[in-house]
């Protein structure tokens, strides 16, 4: 068994209102960051998991996303990276 650090991005599905992104963008404008065009806020989840190999670590994290970490109705997820640790 090896230890892996898997990073997951969970993002609001396109088309669904993202008030947090909008509010952050507005706040950035007020602070003077006029060049900001758009902001989206999602979750960045780090899972430390024991697995036989990278592939297994990724597969099992994918399953965690499907079952718990992401909401299939409103969110998309993506495995951003898998690193041996």
């Amino acid at each position: 068994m090896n230890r892996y650090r898997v990073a997951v991005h969970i993002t609001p599905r396109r088309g669904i209102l993202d008030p947090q992104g909008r509010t952050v963008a507005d706040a950035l404008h007020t602070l003077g960051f006029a060049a900001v065009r758009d902001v989206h806020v999602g979750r960045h989840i780090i899972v430390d998991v024991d697995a036989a190999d990278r592939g297994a670590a990724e597969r099992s994290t994918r399953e965690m996303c499907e079952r718990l970490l992401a909401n299939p109705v409103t969110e998309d997820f993506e495995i951003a990276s898998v690193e041996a640790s």
Partner: protein
Amino acid sequence: MKFGIVTFPASNCDYDAYQAVVEGLGEDAVFLWHKEHDLKQSDVIILPGGFSYGDYLRAGAIARFSPVMQDVIAFAKRGGPVLGICNGFQIACEAGLLPGALLRNASLKFVCETVQLRVENSDTLFTNRYERGAIIRVPIAHGDGRYTASDETLDRLEQEGRVAFRYVGGPADADEWWSPNGSMRAIGGVVNEAGNVLGLMPHPERAVDPLLGSADGLGVFESMLARVAA
């Protein structure tokens, strides 16, 4: 009639629901512990408000996997009446008992106030003691109450009369849609296809005593009593 009220870790409106049933309605209520597979022969299940598992990750996401939820889901599938209030609504959506999801309020702030709801369908198990179109005053208190679903789902809910309550009372017009949390189409409560599960963000159990400002929520409990006891 016996109401079973589920206590998840950090449920905090379980006791209020209990009081509403026992004192407000004059019926029996029992608490159901989340770790047990025992619905104690309840006729109706209430998933109460609160912050089950701290609402960490997403409101209701973890609670839906509690042991008792397997029994609640089976009970609902058999046609048993289930009322999900606030966090209970969130849990019911996460568990797939109701369509859609409840996202962070559009204001990004927790909001506590008394709102006006319009009864959109008075034929349901949960609303038959109201007049259709009646406007009732009920408190809300939530941070994640923005009802969200696909357009197809929303269209279908409306066609099938499954939008039970809408937020109304815009500044100009008491009948105007006006959602305190950014809910799509100002939806405050929906029922499932079979009509035996209602989820709503407002707290009818907090509106059962005129001393506290409104007794308009009692109708939800009376409606269930009228149908289930019959």
